[in-house]
Protein backbone atom coordinates (compact mmCIF):
# COMPACT_ATOMS: atom_id res chain seq x y z
CA UNK A 1 0.00 0.00 0.00
CA UNK A 2 1.40 3.35 -1.01
CA UNK A 3 1.94 5.90 1.67
CA UNK A 4 -0.39 8.88 1.65
CA UNK A 5 1.14 11.88 -0.05
CA UNK A 6 0.31 15.53 0.24
CA UNK A 7 1.65 18.72 -1.25
CA UNK A 8 3.83 21.04 0.78
CA UNK A 9 5.35 24.36 -0.10
CA UNK A 10 9.10 24.18 -0.27
CA UNK A 11 9.55 27.36 1.69
CA UNK A 12 7.19 26.21 4.41
CA UNK A 13 9.86 25.31 6.89
CA UNK A 14 11.52 28.64 6.33
CA UNK A 15 8.37 30.71 6.46
CA UNK A 16 7.19 29.06 9.64
CA UNK A 17 10.32 30.07 11.48
CA UNK A 18 10.31 33.66 10.37
CA UNK A 19 9.12 35.69 7.41
CA UNK A 20 12.01 38.05 6.89
CA UNK A 21 15.14 36.78 8.54
CA UNK A 22 15.67 33.21 7.55
CA UNK A 23 17.03 30.83 10.14
CA UNK A 24 18.54 28.20 7.94
CA UNK A 25 18.98 24.69 9.17
CA UNK A 26 20.18 22.55 6.32
CA UNK A 27 21.89 22.58 2.99
CA UNK A 28 18.68 22.24 0.97
CA UNK A 29 17.26 25.38 2.46
CA UNK A 30 20.46 27.25 1.82
CA UNK A 31 20.30 26.12 -1.80
CA UNK A 32 16.67 27.14 -2.05
CA UNK A 33 17.47 30.64 -0.90
CA UNK A 34 20.79 31.03 -2.70
CA UNK A 35 19.63 29.36 -5.91
CA UNK A 36 18.29 32.39 -7.77
CA UNK A 37 21.18 34.59 -6.69
CA UNK A 38 23.79 32.05 -7.71
CA UNK A 39 21.95 31.46 -10.96
CA UNK A 40 22.07 35.18 -11.76
CA UNK A 41 25.74 35.61 -10.88
CA UNK A 42 26.91 32.39 -12.53
CA UNK A 43 24.71 33.03 -15.52
CA UNK A 44 26.13 36.50 -16.03
CA UNK A 45 29.71 35.31 -15.67
CA UNK A 46 29.09 32.46 -18.09
CA UNK A 47 27.50 34.63 -20.77
CA UNK A 48 30.72 35.72 -22.53
CA UNK A 49 31.73 32.06 -22.89
CA UNK A 50 28.31 30.98 -24.09
CA UNK A 51 28.48 33.53 -26.88
CA UNK A 52 32.12 32.77 -27.64
CA UNK A 53 31.32 32.00 -31.28
CA UNK A 54 29.03 34.98 -31.79
CA UNK A 55 31.13 38.13 -31.45
CA UNK A 56 28.18 40.34 -32.30
CA UNK A 57 26.17 39.05 -29.37
CA UNK A 58 29.17 39.47 -27.10
CA UNK A 59 28.89 43.17 -27.88
CA UNK A 60 25.21 42.99 -27.05
CA UNK A 61 26.09 41.62 -23.60
CA UNK A 62 28.07 44.79 -22.92
CA UNK A 63 25.33 47.15 -23.87
CA UNK A 64 22.73 44.99 -22.14
CA UNK A 65 24.60 45.18 -18.85
CA UNK A 66 25.15 48.92 -19.30
CA UNK A 67 21.40 49.36 -19.65
CA UNK A 68 20.89 47.12 -16.63
CA UNK A 69 23.08 49.48 -14.61
CA UNK A 70 21.06 52.48 -15.83
CA UNK A 71 17.83 50.70 -14.98
CA UNK A 72 19.19 50.07 -11.49
CA UNK A 73 19.78 53.78 -11.12
CA UNK A 74 16.25 54.61 -12.27
CA UNK A 75 14.67 51.96 -10.08
CA UNK A 76 16.48 53.18 -6.99
CA UNK A 77 15.52 56.79 -7.62
CA UNK A 78 11.90 56.15 -8.58
CA UNK A 79 10.87 53.39 -6.25
CA UNK A 80 12.97 54.07 -3.18
CA UNK A 81 13.12 57.87 -3.19
CA UNK A 82 10.09 58.77 -5.29
CA UNK A 83 11.94 60.87 -7.86
CA UNK A 84 11.15 59.99 -11.47
CA UNK A 85 14.13 60.67 -13.68
CA UNK A 86 12.94 61.06 -17.26
CA UNK A 87 16.43 61.80 -18.52
CA UNK A 88 18.68 58.88 -17.71
CA UNK A 89 20.63 59.97 -20.76
CA UNK A 90 21.84 62.95 -18.74
CA UNK A 91 23.86 60.58 -16.54
CA UNK A 92 25.31 58.59 -19.43
CA UNK A 93 26.17 61.74 -21.32
CA UNK A 94 27.90 63.43 -18.41
CA UNK A 95 29.74 60.24 -17.42
CA UNK A 96 30.79 59.61 -21.00
CA UNK A 97 32.08 63.12 -21.62
CA UNK A 98 33.97 63.17 -18.33
CA UNK A 99 35.60 59.86 -19.23
CA UNK A 100 36.53 61.29 -22.62
CA UNK A 101 38.02 64.43 -21.08
CA UNK A 102 39.99 62.51 -18.46
CA UNK A 103 41.22 59.97 -20.97
CA UNK A 104 42.10 62.08 -24.01
CA UNK A 105 42.77 65.58 -22.71
CA UNK A 106 44.36 64.67 -19.39
CA UNK A 107 45.89 61.43 -20.63
CA UNK A 108 44.75 59.23 -17.77
CA UNK A 109 44.79 55.46 -18.25
CA UNK A 110 41.48 53.69 -18.62
CA UNK A 111 41.40 52.19 -15.12
CA UNK A 112 41.77 55.66 -13.66
CA UNK A 113 39.55 57.64 -16.00
CA UNK A 114 36.49 55.44 -15.55
CA UNK A 115 36.20 55.66 -11.75
CA UNK A 116 37.19 59.32 -11.75
CA UNK A 117 34.65 60.12 -14.46
CA UNK A 118 32.02 58.30 -12.45
CA UNK A 119 32.67 60.35 -9.35
CA UNK A 120 33.16 63.67 -11.14
CA UNK A 121 30.06 63.03 -13.21
CA UNK A 122 28.00 62.21 -10.15
CA UNK A 123 29.10 65.41 -8.43
CA UNK A 124 28.29 67.40 -11.56
CA UNK A 125 24.87 65.79 -12.03
CA UNK A 126 23.92 66.25 -8.40
CA UNK A 127 24.94 69.89 -8.61
CA UNK A 128 22.84 70.42 -11.74
CA UNK A 129 19.79 68.78 -10.20
CA UNK A 130 20.15 70.57 -6.88
CA UNK A 131 17.56 73.35 -7.49
CA UNK A 132 14.63 70.98 -7.94
CA UNK A 133 15.34 68.72 -4.97
CA UNK A 134 13.46 70.70 -2.28
CA UNK A 135 10.29 70.47 -4.39
CA UNK A 136 7.72 67.87 -5.28
CA UNK A 137 8.71 64.99 -7.52
CA UNK A 138 7.09 66.38 -10.64
CA UNK A 139 9.68 69.20 -10.80
CA UNK A 140 12.46 66.65 -10.77
CA UNK A 141 10.83 64.82 -13.69
CA UNK A 142 10.50 68.08 -15.62
CA UNK A 143 14.06 69.23 -15.09
CA UNK A 144 15.59 65.84 -15.84
CA UNK A 145 13.55 65.71 -19.02
CA UNK A 146 15.12 68.98 -20.13
CA UNK A 147 18.77 68.43 -19.28
CA UNK A 148 19.76 65.90 -21.98
CA UNK A 149 18.15 68.06 -24.67
CA UNK A 150 19.73 71.17 -23.23
CA UNK A 151 23.24 69.73 -23.16
CA UNK A 152 22.85 68.48 -26.72
CA UNK A 153 21.93 72.02 -27.80
CA UNK A 154 24.74 73.63 -25.83
CA UNK A 155 27.36 71.30 -27.24
CA UNK A 156 26.04 71.85 -30.75
CA UNK A 157 25.75 75.60 -30.37
CA UNK A 158 29.06 76.32 -28.70
CA UNK A 159 30.89 73.64 -30.66
CA UNK A 160 32.71 72.60 -27.50
CA UNK A 161 33.81 69.06 -26.59
CA UNK A 162 34.14 68.08 -30.23
CA UNK A 163 30.82 69.60 -31.28
CA UNK A 164 28.60 67.38 -33.36
CA UNK A 165 31.45 65.03 -34.24
CA UNK A 166 32.10 64.11 -30.64
CA UNK A 167 35.39 63.32 -28.96
CA UNK A 168 37.35 60.51 -30.55
CA UNK A 169 40.50 58.66 -29.62
CA UNK A 170 39.39 57.32 -26.26
CA UNK A 171 41.29 54.24 -25.10
CA UNK A 172 39.58 50.93 -25.72
CA UNK A 173 39.51 47.97 -23.37
CA UNK A 174 42.46 45.56 -23.83
CA UNK A 175 40.28 42.70 -25.09
CA UNK A 176 36.72 41.50 -25.39
CA UNK A 177 36.78 39.58 -22.11
CA UNK A 178 37.85 42.62 -20.13
CA UNK A 179 35.06 44.53 -21.86
CA UNK A 180 32.48 41.93 -20.86
CA UNK A 181 33.62 41.33 -17.33
CA UNK A 182 34.14 44.99 -16.44
CA UNK A 183 30.50 45.83 -17.00
CA UNK A 184 29.25 42.54 -15.56
CA UNK A 185 31.26 43.24 -12.41
CA UNK A 186 30.00 46.84 -12.25
CA UNK A 187 26.41 45.65 -12.64
CA UNK A 188 26.69 42.97 -9.97
CA UNK A 189 28.54 45.17 -7.51
CA UNK A 190 25.94 47.92 -7.84
CA UNK A 191 23.07 45.43 -7.67
CA UNK A 192 24.15 43.74 -4.47
CA UNK A 193 25.53 46.96 -3.05
CA UNK A 194 22.22 48.70 -3.55
CA UNK A 195 20.29 45.79 -2.13
CA UNK A 196 22.28 46.22 1.05
CA UNK A 197 22.13 49.99 0.96
CA UNK A 198 18.34 50.25 0.77
CA UNK A 199 18.03 48.16 3.91
CA UNK A 200 20.46 50.29 5.89
CA UNK A 201 19.08 53.04 8.10
CA UNK A 202 19.62 55.65 5.41
CA UNK A 203 17.77 53.47 2.91
CA UNK A 204 14.80 53.26 5.24
CA UNK A 205 14.74 57.03 5.62
CA UNK A 206 14.82 57.36 1.84
CA UNK A 207 11.77 55.14 1.59
CA UNK A 208 10.18 57.39 4.14
CA UNK A 209 10.91 60.35 1.88
CA UNK A 210 9.02 58.58 -0.87
CA UNK A 211 6.03 57.50 1.18
CA UNK A 212 5.54 60.42 3.52
CA UNK A 213 7.95 63.31 3.30
CA UNK A 214 6.18 65.30 5.99
CA UNK A 215 6.79 62.50 8.48
CA UNK A 216 10.48 62.55 7.62
CA UNK A 217 10.56 66.29 8.17
CA UNK A 218 8.71 65.93 11.42
CA UNK A 219 11.41 63.54 12.58
CA UNK A 220 13.96 66.30 12.19
CA UNK A 221 15.58 64.89 9.06
CA UNK A 222 16.10 67.17 6.09
CA UNK A 223 14.25 65.80 3.07
CA UNK A 224 16.47 67.80 0.74
CA UNK A 225 19.63 66.37 2.24
CA UNK A 226 18.35 62.80 1.91
CA UNK A 227 17.42 63.48 -1.69
CA UNK A 228 20.86 64.90 -2.42
CA UNK A 229 22.38 61.67 -1.11
CA UNK A 230 19.99 59.61 -3.22
CA UNK A 231 20.56 61.61 -6.39
CA UNK A 232 24.31 61.42 -5.87
CA UNK A 233 24.18 57.64 -5.60
CA UNK A 234 21.86 57.28 -8.57
CA UNK A 235 24.02 59.52 -10.73
CA UNK A 236 27.07 57.60 -9.56
CA UNK A 237 25.49 54.44 -10.94
CA UNK A 238 24.32 56.15 -14.13
CA UNK A 239 27.63 57.90 -14.80
CA UNK A 240 29.58 54.66 -14.40
CA UNK A 241 27.51 53.22 -17.24
CA UNK A 242 28.16 56.36 -19.29
CA UNK A 243 31.90 56.24 -18.68
CA UNK A 244 31.92 52.58 -19.64
CA UNK A 245 29.99 53.20 -22.84
CA UNK A 246 32.38 55.98 -23.85
CA UNK A 247 35.33 53.63 -23.45
CA UNK A 248 33.46 50.80 -25.15
CA UNK A 249 32.77 52.82 -28.29
CA UNK A 250 36.05 54.75 -27.96
CA UNK A 251 33.94 57.82 -28.61
CA UNK A 252 31.86 60.34 -26.71
CA UNK A 253 29.33 62.34 -28.67
CA UNK A 254 25.94 63.89 -28.36
CA UNK A 255 24.30 60.54 -29.03
CA UNK A 256 25.22 59.71 -25.42
CA UNK A 257 22.37 62.07 -24.58
CA UNK A 258 20.03 60.10 -26.87
CA UNK A 259 16.50 59.17 -25.97
CA UNK A 260 17.31 55.44 -25.83
CA UNK A 261 19.31 55.88 -22.64
CA UNK A 262 16.31 57.50 -21.00
CA UNK A 263 13.46 55.32 -22.13
CA UNK A 264 14.90 51.78 -22.15
CA UNK A 265 15.85 51.85 -18.44
CA UNK A 266 12.36 53.13 -17.55
CA UNK A 267 10.76 50.39 -19.61
CA UNK A 268 13.10 47.81 -18.12
CA UNK A 269 12.17 48.81 -14.59
CA UNK A 270 8.45 48.77 -15.26
CA UNK A 271 8.63 45.41 -17.00
CA UNK A 272 11.00 43.84 -14.53
CA UNK A 273 9.15 45.09 -11.49
CA UNK A 274 9.79 48.38 -9.77
CA UNK A 275 11.33 48.38 -6.34
CA UNK A 276 13.05 45.03 -6.61
CA UNK A 277 16.37 46.21 -8.11
CA UNK A 278 16.92 42.73 -9.58
CA UNK A 279 13.78 43.23 -11.62
CA UNK A 280 15.34 46.28 -13.25
CA UNK A 281 18.24 44.13 -14.47
CA UNK A 282 15.99 41.32 -15.62
CA UNK A 283 13.93 43.85 -17.54
CA UNK A 284 17.04 45.14 -19.29
CA UNK A 285 18.11 41.56 -20.07
CA UNK A 286 14.75 41.06 -21.79
CA UNK A 287 14.46 44.39 -23.56
CA UNK A 288 17.94 44.94 -24.95
CA UNK A 289 18.24 41.63 -26.84
CA UNK A 290 14.70 42.23 -28.05
CA UNK A 291 15.70 45.62 -29.36
CA UNK A 292 18.68 44.04 -31.15
CA UNK A 293 16.32 41.64 -32.86
CA UNK A 294 14.08 44.54 -33.82
CA UNK A 295 16.97 46.67 -35.08
CA UNK A 296 15.47 46.73 -38.56
CA UNK A 297 12.52 48.75 -37.30
CA UNK A 298 14.58 51.83 -36.47
CA UNK A 299 12.76 54.39 -34.37
CA UNK A 300 9.70 52.17 -34.28
CA UNK A 301 11.48 50.30 -31.48
CA UNK A 302 10.85 53.23 -29.16
CA UNK A 303 7.16 52.95 -29.99
CA UNK A 304 7.27 49.27 -29.07
CA UNK A 305 8.97 50.00 -25.75
CA UNK A 306 6.44 52.67 -24.97
CA UNK A 307 3.50 50.41 -25.74
CA UNK A 308 4.96 47.60 -23.64
CA UNK A 309 5.69 50.13 -20.92
CA UNK A 310 2.20 51.58 -20.87
CA UNK A 311 0.68 48.11 -21.00
CA UNK A 312 2.70 46.94 -18.02
CA UNK A 313 2.09 50.08 -15.99
CA UNK A 314 -1.65 49.84 -16.51
CA UNK A 315 -2.33 46.12 -16.47
CA UNK A 316 0.58 44.45 -14.67
CA UNK A 317 2.17 47.12 -12.55
CA UNK A 318 3.92 44.65 -10.26
CA UNK A 319 6.24 43.52 -13.07
CA UNK A 320 7.80 40.20 -13.93
CA UNK A 321 10.20 39.92 -11.00
CA UNK A 322 7.60 40.29 -8.26
CA UNK A 323 5.46 37.73 -10.03
CA UNK A 324 8.35 35.26 -10.35
CA UNK A 325 9.36 35.79 -6.76
CA UNK A 326 5.88 34.92 -5.61
CA UNK A 327 5.75 31.83 -7.79
CA UNK A 328 9.16 30.72 -6.58
CA UNK A 329 7.97 30.89 -3.02
CA UNK A 330 4.91 28.88 -3.96
CA UNK A 331 6.78 25.86 -5.34
CA UNK A 332 5.34 22.68 -3.91
CA UNK A 333 6.63 19.16 -3.44
CA UNK A 334 5.07 15.86 -2.52
CA UNK A 335 5.77 14.62 1.00
CA UNK A 336 4.66 11.59 2.95
CA UNK A 337 1.99 12.25 5.48
Amino acid at each position, binding site marked *: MDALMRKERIDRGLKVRTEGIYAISDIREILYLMGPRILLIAGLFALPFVFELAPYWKKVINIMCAYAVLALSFDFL*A*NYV*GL*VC*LGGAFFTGVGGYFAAIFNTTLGMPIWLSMPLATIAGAVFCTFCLL*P*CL*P*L*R*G*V*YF*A*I*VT*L*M*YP*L*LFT*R*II*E*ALDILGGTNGMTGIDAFPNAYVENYTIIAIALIFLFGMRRFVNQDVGLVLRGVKDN*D*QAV*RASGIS*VTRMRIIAVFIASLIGCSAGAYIAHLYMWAGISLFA*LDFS*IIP*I*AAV*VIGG*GGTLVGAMIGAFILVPLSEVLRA*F*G*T*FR*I*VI*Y*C*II*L*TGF*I*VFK*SEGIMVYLQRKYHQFERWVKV
Partner: protein
Amino acid sequence: MEIVVYGIINSITLSLISLGFTLVYSISRVPNFAHGALYVTSGYLTWIFLNKCTGMPYVLAIILGIGITAVVGALIYQFILVRVRGMEISEIIATYAIGLAILEGLRWGGLRGGTFSLPAFFAGSVDILGVSVDYQRLIIVGAGILTFILLYLFTRYTKMGLAFRGIAQDERAAMMLGINSDVTAVLSLGIGSALAGLAAILLLPLGNIVVETGYNVLIFAIAVCVIGGLGSWGGVIVASFIIGFAQILTESFLSAHYQMVVALLAIILTLLVKPSGIFGKQKELEERV
Protein backbone atom coordinates in the same frame (compact mmCIF):
# COMPACT_ATOMS: atom_id res chain seq x y z
CA MET B 1 10.76 98.30 -32.30
CA GLU B 2 11.23 94.98 -33.98
CA ILE B 3 12.06 93.46 -30.60
CA VAL B 4 8.84 94.76 -29.08
CA VAL B 5 6.59 93.55 -31.89
CA TYR B 6 8.19 90.15 -32.24
CA GLY B 7 8.48 89.85 -28.47
CA ILE B 8 4.74 90.24 -28.12
CA ILE B 9 4.09 87.74 -30.90
CA ASN B 10 6.52 85.26 -29.40
CA SER B 11 5.01 85.68 -25.95
CA ILE B 12 1.51 84.99 -27.20
CA THR B 13 2.83 81.97 -29.09
CA LEU B 14 4.33 80.62 -25.90
CA SER B 15 1.21 81.17 -23.87
CA LEU B 16 -0.90 79.44 -26.54
CA ILE B 17 1.44 76.46 -26.33
CA SER B 18 1.29 76.28 -22.56
CA LEU B 19 -2.42 76.89 -22.01
CA GLY B 20 -3.35 73.26 -22.61
CA PHE B 21 -0.66 71.94 -20.31
CA THR B 22 -1.55 74.24 -17.46
CA LEU B 23 -5.28 73.56 -17.85
CA VAL B 24 -4.78 69.83 -17.55
CA TYR B 25 -2.41 70.17 -14.63
CA SER B 26 -4.53 72.59 -12.68
CA ILE B 27 -7.67 70.50 -12.99
CA SER B 28 -6.59 66.89 -12.90
CA ARG B 29 -3.09 67.32 -11.40
CA VAL B 30 -1.73 65.15 -14.19
CA PRO B 31 1.47 66.52 -15.71
CA ASN B 32 0.63 65.78 -19.32
CA PHE B 33 3.96 64.89 -20.87
CA ALA B 34 2.09 63.86 -24.02
CA HIS B 35 1.27 67.53 -24.68
CA GLY B 36 3.89 68.00 -27.39
CA ALA B 37 2.82 64.77 -29.06
CA LEU B 38 -0.80 65.92 -29.19
CA TYR B 39 0.36 69.21 -30.69
CA VAL B 40 2.16 67.45 -33.53
CA THR B 41 -0.68 64.94 -33.97
CA SER B 42 -3.17 67.70 -34.55
CA GLY B 43 -0.96 69.39 -37.12
CA TYR B 44 -0.31 66.12 -38.90
CA LEU B 45 -3.99 65.15 -38.94
CA THR B 46 -4.93 68.48 -40.46
CA TRP B 47 -2.23 68.02 -43.06
CA ILE B 48 -3.60 64.58 -43.91
CA PHE B 49 -7.17 65.84 -44.23
CA LEU B 50 -5.99 68.73 -46.35
CA ASN B 51 -3.75 66.78 -48.72
CA LYS B 52 -5.16 63.27 -48.85
CA CYS B 53 -8.86 64.09 -48.92
CA THR B 54 -9.10 66.26 -51.97
CA GLY B 55 -11.64 69.01 -51.94
CA MET B 56 -11.91 69.27 -48.21
CA PRO B 57 -12.03 72.91 -47.17
CA TYR B 58 -9.25 74.13 -44.88
CA VAL B 59 -11.68 75.06 -42.13
CA LEU B 60 -13.21 71.59 -42.01
CA ALA B 61 -9.76 69.99 -41.93
CA ILE B 62 -8.80 72.20 -39.00
CA ILE B 63 -11.96 71.41 -37.09
CA LEU B 64 -11.51 67.68 -37.69
CA GLY B 65 -7.83 67.85 -36.70
CA ILE B 66 -8.54 69.63 -33.44
CA GLY B 67 -11.60 67.48 -32.73
CA ILE B 68 -9.79 64.18 -33.19
CA THR B 69 -6.89 65.39 -31.04
CA ALA B 70 -9.35 66.28 -28.29
CA VAL B 71 -10.89 62.82 -28.49
CA VAL B 72 -7.45 61.20 -28.39
CA GLY B 73 -6.61 63.19 -25.27
CA ALA B 74 -9.85 62.22 -23.59
CA LEU B 75 -9.34 58.57 -24.52
CA ILE B 76 -5.83 58.62 -23.08
CA TYR B 77 -7.32 59.63 -19.76
CA GLN B 78 -10.33 57.35 -19.93
CA PHE B 79 -8.43 54.18 -20.71
CA ILE B 80 -4.96 54.66 -19.32
CA LEU B 81 -4.55 57.48 -16.85
CA VAL B 82 -7.68 56.73 -14.88
CA ARG B 83 -6.12 53.44 -13.85
CA VAL B 84 -3.00 55.03 -12.43
CA ARG B 85 -4.67 58.12 -11.01
CA GLY B 86 -3.01 59.39 -7.88
CA MET B 87 0.18 57.38 -8.34
CA GLU B 88 2.46 60.21 -9.29
CA ILE B 89 5.30 58.05 -10.59
CA SER B 90 3.03 55.99 -12.81
CA GLU B 91 1.23 59.09 -14.11
CA ILE B 92 4.47 60.72 -15.19
CA ILE B 93 5.84 57.57 -16.79
CA ALA B 94 2.57 56.73 -18.53
CA THR B 95 2.04 60.16 -20.10
CA TYR B 96 5.69 60.38 -21.10
CA ALA B 97 5.54 56.92 -22.69
CA ILE B 98 2.36 57.74 -24.58
CA GLY B 99 3.87 60.98 -25.84
CA LEU B 100 7.02 59.24 -27.00
CA ALA B 101 5.03 56.47 -28.63
CA ILE B 102 2.99 58.97 -30.62
CA LEU B 103 5.98 61.11 -31.63
CA GLU B 104 8.31 58.27 -32.57
CA GLY B 105 5.42 56.43 -34.21
CA LEU B 106 4.79 59.46 -36.42
CA ARG B 107 8.50 59.67 -37.22
CA TRP B 108 8.50 56.01 -38.19
CA GLY B 109 5.26 56.48 -40.11
CA GLY B 110 6.96 58.91 -42.43
CA LEU B 111 6.84 62.30 -40.71
CA ARG B 112 10.37 63.25 -41.74
CA GLY B 113 11.97 66.08 -43.62
CA GLY B 114 10.50 69.39 -44.64
CA THR B 115 7.71 68.12 -46.84
CA PHE B 116 4.90 68.64 -44.36
CA SER B 117 3.62 72.15 -43.94
CA LEU B 118 0.26 73.77 -43.55
CA PRO B 119 -0.64 76.77 -45.68
CA ALA B 120 -1.01 80.17 -44.06
CA PHE B 121 -4.57 81.36 -43.57
CA PHE B 122 -3.93 84.53 -45.54
CA ALA B 123 -0.77 85.28 -47.42
CA GLY B 124 0.89 88.63 -47.28
CA SER B 125 2.08 90.99 -44.61
CA VAL B 126 1.45 94.39 -43.18
CA ASP B 127 3.61 97.08 -41.63
CA ILE B 128 3.09 97.70 -37.92
CA LEU B 129 5.16 100.43 -36.33
CA GLY B 130 7.62 100.11 -39.16
CA VAL B 131 8.03 96.36 -38.75
CA SER B 132 6.75 94.02 -41.40
CA VAL B 133 4.52 91.37 -39.85
CA ASP B 134 2.77 88.72 -41.91
CA TYR B 135 -0.94 88.10 -41.47
CA GLN B 136 -0.46 84.67 -39.92
CA ARG B 137 1.35 86.19 -36.96
CA LEU B 138 -1.39 88.77 -36.55
CA ILE B 139 -3.95 85.97 -36.54
CA ILE B 140 -1.93 84.22 -33.84
CA VAL B 141 -2.03 87.32 -31.67
CA GLY B 142 -5.73 87.80 -32.28
CA ALA B 143 -6.60 84.15 -31.74
CA GLY B 144 -4.43 84.00 -28.64
CA ILE B 145 -6.18 86.96 -27.03
CA LEU B 146 -9.56 85.58 -28.07
CA THR B 147 -8.73 82.20 -26.55
CA PHE B 148 -7.81 83.84 -23.28
CA ILE B 149 -11.03 85.80 -23.16
CA LEU B 150 -13.13 82.77 -24.07
CA LEU B 151 -11.40 80.60 -21.48
CA TYR B 152 -11.85 83.29 -18.87
CA LEU B 153 -15.56 83.53 -19.62
CA PHE B 154 -15.85 79.77 -19.78
CA THR B 155 -14.33 79.23 -16.36
CA ARG B 156 -16.35 82.03 -14.74
CA TYR B 157 -19.77 81.84 -16.28
CA THR B 158 -20.52 78.30 -17.41
CA LYS B 159 -21.46 75.41 -15.20
CA MET B 160 -18.75 73.16 -16.59
CA GLY B 161 -16.11 75.84 -16.21
CA LEU B 162 -17.10 76.45 -12.62
CA ALA B 163 -16.93 72.70 -11.98
CA PHE B 164 -13.40 72.74 -13.42
CA ARG B 165 -12.38 75.49 -11.06
CA GLY B 166 -14.01 73.71 -8.17
CA ILE B 167 -12.06 70.53 -8.81
CA ALA B 168 -8.87 72.52 -9.27
CA GLN B 169 -9.25 74.33 -5.97
CA ASP B 170 -10.40 71.53 -3.71
CA GLU B 171 -11.15 68.15 -5.15
CA ARG B 172 -12.89 66.67 -2.13
CA ALA B 173 -15.15 69.61 -1.49
CA ALA B 174 -16.08 69.68 -5.17
CA MET B 175 -16.90 65.98 -5.12
CA MET B 176 -19.14 66.49 -2.11
CA LEU B 177 -21.05 69.05 -4.13
CA GLY B 178 -21.71 66.42 -6.79
CA ILE B 179 -19.00 67.21 -9.30
CA ASN B 180 -17.66 64.01 -10.80
CA SER B 181 -13.90 64.18 -10.58
CA ASP B 182 -13.20 61.62 -13.28
CA VAL B 183 -15.59 63.11 -15.81
CA THR B 184 -14.09 66.52 -15.18
CA ALA B 185 -10.61 65.13 -15.65
CA VAL B 186 -11.58 63.45 -18.94
CA LEU B 187 -13.06 66.72 -20.16
CA SER B 188 -10.04 68.68 -19.00
CA LEU B 189 -7.72 66.40 -20.91
CA GLY B 190 -9.97 66.70 -23.95
CA ILE B 191 -10.00 70.49 -23.77
CA GLY B 192 -6.31 70.62 -22.99
CA SER B 193 -5.60 68.52 -26.08
CA ALA B 194 -7.88 70.69 -28.15
CA LEU B 195 -5.94 73.74 -26.98
CA ALA B 196 -2.69 72.02 -27.96
CA GLY B 197 -4.29 71.30 -31.33
CA LEU B 198 -5.44 74.88 -31.72
CA ALA B 199 -1.95 76.13 -30.96
CA ALA B 200 -0.57 73.71 -33.54
CA ILE B 201 -2.97 74.83 -36.26
CA LEU B 202 -2.14 78.48 -35.61
CA LEU B 203 1.61 78.09 -35.30
CA LEU B 204 2.52 75.36 -37.75
CA PRO B 205 1.88 77.40 -40.92
CA LEU B 206 4.97 79.39 -39.90
CA GLY B 207 7.20 76.34 -40.29
CA ASN B 208 7.29 72.67 -41.12
CA ILE B 209 5.64 69.88 -39.17
CA VAL B 210 8.54 67.93 -37.71
CA VAL B 211 8.72 65.52 -34.81
CA GLU B 212 11.26 67.67 -32.95
CA THR B 213 8.62 70.39 -32.62
CA GLY B 214 6.81 68.04 -30.27
CA TYR B 215 9.73 67.93 -27.85
CA ASN B 216 10.35 71.66 -28.08
CA VAL B 217 6.70 72.50 -27.51
CA LEU B 218 6.60 70.25 -24.46
CA ILE B 219 9.70 71.84 -23.02
CA PHE B 220 8.59 75.42 -23.59
CA ALA B 221 5.13 74.66 -22.23
CA ILE B 222 6.66 73.19 -19.10
CA ALA B 223 9.09 76.08 -18.75
CA VAL B 224 6.29 78.62 -18.94
CA CYS B 225 4.15 76.67 -16.48
CA VAL B 226 6.91 76.19 -13.93
CA ILE B 227 7.86 79.85 -14.02
CA GLY B 228 4.27 81.01 -13.82
CA GLY B 229 3.50 78.51 -11.11
CA LEU B 230 2.20 75.07 -12.12
CA GLY B 231 -1.52 75.26 -12.67
CA SER B 232 -1.83 79.03 -12.48
CA TRP B 233 -3.56 80.95 -15.30
CA GLY B 234 -2.30 84.43 -14.71
CA GLY B 235 1.13 82.98 -14.22
CA VAL B 236 1.10 81.50 -17.71
CA ILE B 237 0.54 84.89 -19.30
CA VAL B 238 3.15 86.70 -17.25
CA ALA B 239 5.69 83.92 -17.58
CA SER B 240 5.24 83.63 -21.32
CA PHE B 241 5.86 87.35 -21.67
CA ILE B 242 9.02 87.03 -19.59
CA ILE B 243 10.35 84.06 -21.55
CA GLY B 244 9.06 85.39 -24.84
CA PHE B 245 10.94 88.67 -24.54
CA ALA B 246 14.00 86.99 -23.06
CA GLN B 247 14.12 84.68 -26.06
CA ILE B 248 13.74 87.45 -28.60
CA LEU B 249 16.46 89.42 -26.84
CA THR B 250 18.88 86.49 -26.83
CA GLU B 251 18.02 85.74 -30.43
CA SER B 252 18.80 89.24 -31.59
CA PHE B 253 21.88 89.79 -29.45
CA LEU B 254 23.36 86.28 -29.19
CA SER B 255 22.05 83.45 -31.37
CA ALA B 256 18.90 81.41 -31.80
CA HIS B 257 20.65 78.37 -30.37
CA TYR B 258 20.34 79.78 -26.88
CA GLN B 259 16.55 79.86 -26.79
CA MET B 260 16.31 76.64 -24.87
CA VAL B 261 19.15 77.62 -22.56
CA VAL B 262 17.15 80.72 -21.66
CA ALA B 263 14.11 78.60 -20.86
CA LEU B 264 16.06 76.24 -18.65
CA LEU B 265 17.97 78.97 -16.86
CA ALA B 266 14.66 80.67 -16.17
CA ILE B 267 13.28 77.46 -14.70
CA ILE B 268 16.30 76.93 -12.50
CA LEU B 269 16.29 80.53 -11.31
CA THR B 270 12.60 80.27 -10.51
CA LEU B 271 13.09 77.04 -8.60
CA LEU B 272 15.91 78.59 -6.61
CA VAL B 273 14.24 81.89 -5.82
CA LYS B 274 10.51 81.22 -5.72
CA PRO B 275 9.81 77.54 -6.26
CA SER B 276 6.05 77.87 -6.54
CA GLY B 277 6.38 80.21 -9.49
CA ILE B 278 5.31 83.80 -9.88
CA PHE B 279 1.62 83.27 -9.24
CA GLY B 280 1.72 80.03 -7.31
CA LYS B 281 1.13 81.64 -3.96
CA GLN B 282 -1.93 79.65 -3.10
CA LYS B 283 -0.25 76.31 -3.49
CA GLU B 284 3.17 77.33 -2.25
CA LEU B 285 3.11 74.96 0.68
CA GLU B 286 1.99 72.06 -1.45
CA GLU B 287 4.85 72.38 -3.89
CA ARG B 288 7.51 72.38 -1.25
CA VAL B 289 8.10 69.23 0.69
